[in-house]
């Protein structure tokens, strides 16, 4: 659920753009540094970005008879690559969604990028890193991390809309998002759990290399 082109008044559009540009400059600096040091990362990042886009265009099975829903796609990328890279990739994906599909927009790009590319993934990553080392079931941790990535993005989006149109509208925006987005996030969480299980089986070394899962956790998953 992106904020459409032209919905935000110019003051807020400018504010979120400024904030996002600062985050993106830091992200691009990091990207430049990483690619210069280790140039085989670029192709991997490129295909991961395409993966996020394709995932966000995936039509999920509906829960309450709604026609179809689509996931944010950032959950898996966050737990695999971390929030900094996810932000840059997500910015590119949002740019394509705005240009090719008309989802989101150029003037509201700053707000969307902050909510979906930065805020959601950051919270999910912090949660995942904190929980991963504990003894709590790893599937539950992944499931909750994906839900947090989705819901935090939507709460932020509702907050952005409420800030722009008067704070008393916050409950209304939150209610609209809650009704539509909570089922989507739960479905996305379940699917990512199955996906992580599958990836651990086929390419478990990728997760241990990036530090997403420890070797015992991968071994336990494959048992």
């Amino acid at each position: 659920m992106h904020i459409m082109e032209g919905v935000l008044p110019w003051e807020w559009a400018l504010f979120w753009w400024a904030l996002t540009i600062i985050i993106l400059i830091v992200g691009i600096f990091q990207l430049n540094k990483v690619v210069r040091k280790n140039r085989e990362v670029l192709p991997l990042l490129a295909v991961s970005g395409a993966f996020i886009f394709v995932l966000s265009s995936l039509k999920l099975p509906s829960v309450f008879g709604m026609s179809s829903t689509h996931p944010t796609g950032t959950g898996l990328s966050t737990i695999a690559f971390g929030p900094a890279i996810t932000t840059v990739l997500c910015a590119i994906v949002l740019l394509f969604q705005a240009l090719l599909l008309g989802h989101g927009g150029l003037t509201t790009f700053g707000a969307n990028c902050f909510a979906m590319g930065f805020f959601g993934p950051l919270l999910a990553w912090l949660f995942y890193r904190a929980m991963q080392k504990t003894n709590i079931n790893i599937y539950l941790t992944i499931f909750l991390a994906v839900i947090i990535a989705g819901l935090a993005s939507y709460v932020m989006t509702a907050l952005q809309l409420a800030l722009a149109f008067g704070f008393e509208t916050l409950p209304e925006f939150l209610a609209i998002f809650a009704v539509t987005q909570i089922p989507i996030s739960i479905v996305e969480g379940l699917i990512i759990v199955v996906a992580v299980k599958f990836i651990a089986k086929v390419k478990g070394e990728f997760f241990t290399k990036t530090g997403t899962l420890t070797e015992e956790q991968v071994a336990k998953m494959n048992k």
Partner: protein
Amino acid sequence: MRTLDDIALLSPLRYKNTTLKVILVFIGLMAGLFSPSPILPLFIAICMVAATLLFGKIPIGMYFKLFLSVLSFAVVSAFVLAFFVHGGGETLWSINLFGWVISITTGSANLALLVLTRSASGLACVFFLSMTTPMLELFSYFKRFSFLDVFMELVMLIYRYIFVFLALLLKIQSAQAMRFGYSSFKRSMHSAGLLVGSLFVQTLEQGDRLYLSMNSRCYDGKLPYYDAKYKIMFSDALLSLLFIASIAAVFYYTRGYQFF
């Protein structure tokens, strides 16, 4: 989505100067955003749609199908704003739902109309750009700024791989559907999970293959792209100036006008 890029490649406006198009779209977006009255965004939307359809030779049916399907979201948000924002002014209409009063005031109606027209004008501007400029030309334009070099290479590679993975996704999905993979809710959750997982594994392998193929073509951390340069014709410049001048005129004369 595939067709949108094909359309841009076939459009006659493709051979116009990219800088000029970017500037026009930027001015259109900004003017629509800063306008306090819904007249100017409406004017920009009409100009941009007309330019895309007449000069860009975009199929009308396809254009409006895409345009209206996206605009329907804006209509929904305009309704939300009209009902929930307490814009002040006189009450135009109100209803009492089980003790909960919902009302539309002149302030909220004006706000909703402004947001709707602003969305339409922004959308028309973005579609003008993406339907007349092939993405790769647009990106090689931004590659001139050296700070964005690596970022833009990433953008171009992602653009390429979106189509590769979309095709793969559709193939896997229809193979699963043929084997009753989506016959019940529980089974479709499982299938969708396997789909995402195998897509991710394919992504990693494709990344390795891409690196190998780039290396064997002398990749040294820089991807050279052909940067097409088109001259600005006198008639284009004149038309653009006319457009900008009329935006300024409409802005000046209608800035205080509201419908309600």
